[in-house]
């Protein structure tokens, strides 16, 4: 599939990619949490998530979620609040707030 690159096109592409990633994530997440019925197995599973690389992946997960959430809000505004009239401002706002919240979460998680 070919795309014409307008200002919002990366928003469209990334919304799909982050959405697909999050769908995969929620299915795996629910499956892993269902392991609560077995305490020792669950505890050794959780040990694995203490690894620093997994911490970084958790931060990346936050980036994916916050972008998808803010961009989803933008889509809602385009659909129901005449967002098409100011869509470049909205798209820029999604990027700015995503990056600020991503960095802020980095401070919360690692400092």
């Amino acid at each position, binding site marked *: 599939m070919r795309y014409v690159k307008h200002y919002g096109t990366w928003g469209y592409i990334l919304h799909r990619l982050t*959405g697909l990633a999050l769908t995969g994530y*929620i299915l795996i997440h*629910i499956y892993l949490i269902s392991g*609560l*019925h077995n305490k020792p197995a669950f505890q050794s599973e959780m040990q694995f998530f203490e690894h620093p690389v997994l911490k970084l992946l958790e931060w990346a997960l936050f980036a994916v979620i916050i972008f998808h*959430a803010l961009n989803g*809000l933008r889509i809602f505004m385009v659909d*129901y609040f005449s967002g098409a009239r100011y869509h470049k401002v909205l798209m820029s706002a999604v990027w700015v707030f995503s990056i600020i919240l991503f960095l802020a979460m980095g401070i919360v998680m690692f400092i």
Partner: protein
Amino acid sequence: MSYKYRGASNSGANGWFFQRITGIVLFVLVLAHFYIAHRTFQSGHDWDTIIARLASPYMKMFYLSFVTLGVWHGLNGLWSVIRDYNISSGYRKSIFAVIFSVGIFIGLLGFITILNLPAAH
């Protein structure tokens, strides 16, 4: 929803509409989920803490909603992406059946996990 959007029953208009409604609700729920899991006095990821946290009926209600809406929104999104690629109708039905089954399976697994938690020990 008004009559004019109905069109063909498989037009995707209902999926489109509910994708937006669930999306707005999930915006709030996912932020609450971060807060619950990471920032309250009951936060934590070890077995005992999770069991204690999920003992509350409010938590159970919260997570039953979250599982339902999250799984539906994710799989409906996946389905709408797949529909954009003009797959022949035979394959479409099979793909839908697979997505639907995964949704039922994971949804039930989530419900059973929340409603059938072991007692703290």
